[in-house]
């Protein structure tokens, strides 16, 4: 029996592009957008109709816009190009897209570029936040080490002065100055202690702000065997 193969209909192909969640567009070799799917347009805050006919370069962040001709040059010389692009939404927000574009040819011989991208802005921001936490952790560790280094000589100052008073080695007149010195040393101790506590609180707070990651172990059904 010959298996019956159902050919995908043109409508299904169209829906795949137009209704899919991937960010898809086509542009000519000059960078003018020929088509944009709804997901890509939505992500930028436009309708597909708003974007068709505009240059893809216009959607790039001003800082990277001068690089657009280099991209066009690469895609004209090679059959594909991939990398990151910084786009600007209608509301002015900059977002990072990872793109993988290929040069294609229509039946009539006209060449165009088929673009496919993923919005990785949230991932990049999460990475940056992770970097911030690490940097803060290093500063926090430095603060705690500094506290330790200050506390050792402070111990010697406070205890030595107290020892002088306890042994009656200080005249009544000088005792006032010694007491004042002890009080000042204790103020330094309190500042160092508060600094250490604030550093630790800040580290805990920043760590709590890190975005959740997919926990595969926790995602497994409760009765599934753990590897």
């Amino acid at each position, binding site marked *: 029996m010959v298996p019956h193969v159902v050919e995908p209909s043109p409508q299904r192909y169209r829906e795949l592009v137009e209704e899919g969640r991937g960010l898809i567009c086509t542009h000519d070799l000059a960078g003018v957008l020929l088509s944009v799917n709804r997901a890509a347009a939505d992500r930028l805050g436009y309708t597909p109709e708003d974007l068709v006919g505009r240059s893809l370069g216009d959607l790039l962040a001003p800082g990277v816009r001068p690089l657009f001709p280099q991209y066009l040059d690469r895609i004209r010389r090679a059959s594909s190009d991939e990398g990151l692009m910084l786009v600007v939404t209608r509301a002015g927000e900059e977002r990072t897209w990872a793109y993988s574009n290929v040069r294609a040819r229509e039946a009539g011989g006209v060449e165009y570029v088929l673009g496919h991208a993923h919005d990785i802005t949230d991932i990049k921001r999460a990475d940056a936040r992770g970097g911030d936490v690490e940097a803060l952790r290093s500063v926090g560790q430095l603060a*705690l080490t500094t*506290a*330790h*280094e*200050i*506390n*050792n*000589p*402070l*111990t*010697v*100052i*406070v*205890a*030595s002065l*107290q*020892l002088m008073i*306890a042994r009656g080695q200080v005249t009544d007149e000088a005792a006032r100055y010694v007491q004042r010195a002890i009080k000042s*040393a*204790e103020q330094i*101790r309190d500042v160092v*202690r508060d600094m*250490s*506590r604030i550093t*630790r609180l800040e*580290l805990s707070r920043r760590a709590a702000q890190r975005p959740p990651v997919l926990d595969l172990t926790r995602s497994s059904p409760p009765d599934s065997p753990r590897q």
Partner: protein
Amino acid sequence: MSEPRILVVEDETNVRELEAEILREEWEHVDTAVDGTDALRLLAENVYAAIVSDLAMPKLDGRGLYHEVERRYPAAHGRLVFVTGYAEAEEYDEFLRMSGVPVLAKPFTIAALVGAVQRAFSPA
């Protein structure tokens, strides 16, 4: 009954000498060690009524000393007191909570140091 013997373990020379001097005002026999390894050498030779130790030290730190004392001299285990400028350090938090060893934060007063040693003589 013989006089209690006290061991001070501290890598900072000034702090070590001062702690020993303060404690010698109260007790006759006070020995000093420069780190945990040095302390273990003295623990092999003497019985101490109290061991006053820093936490962060080279070679063998206070945590390592605690575990070695627990293993080699279980009776001396409850006589430890940590004196540290790292009281707020996350690194030692869990250990200090688990061990239950009394902690005296630097800088300390003379009364606080003497009191901590007296309590170590008869741990709760």
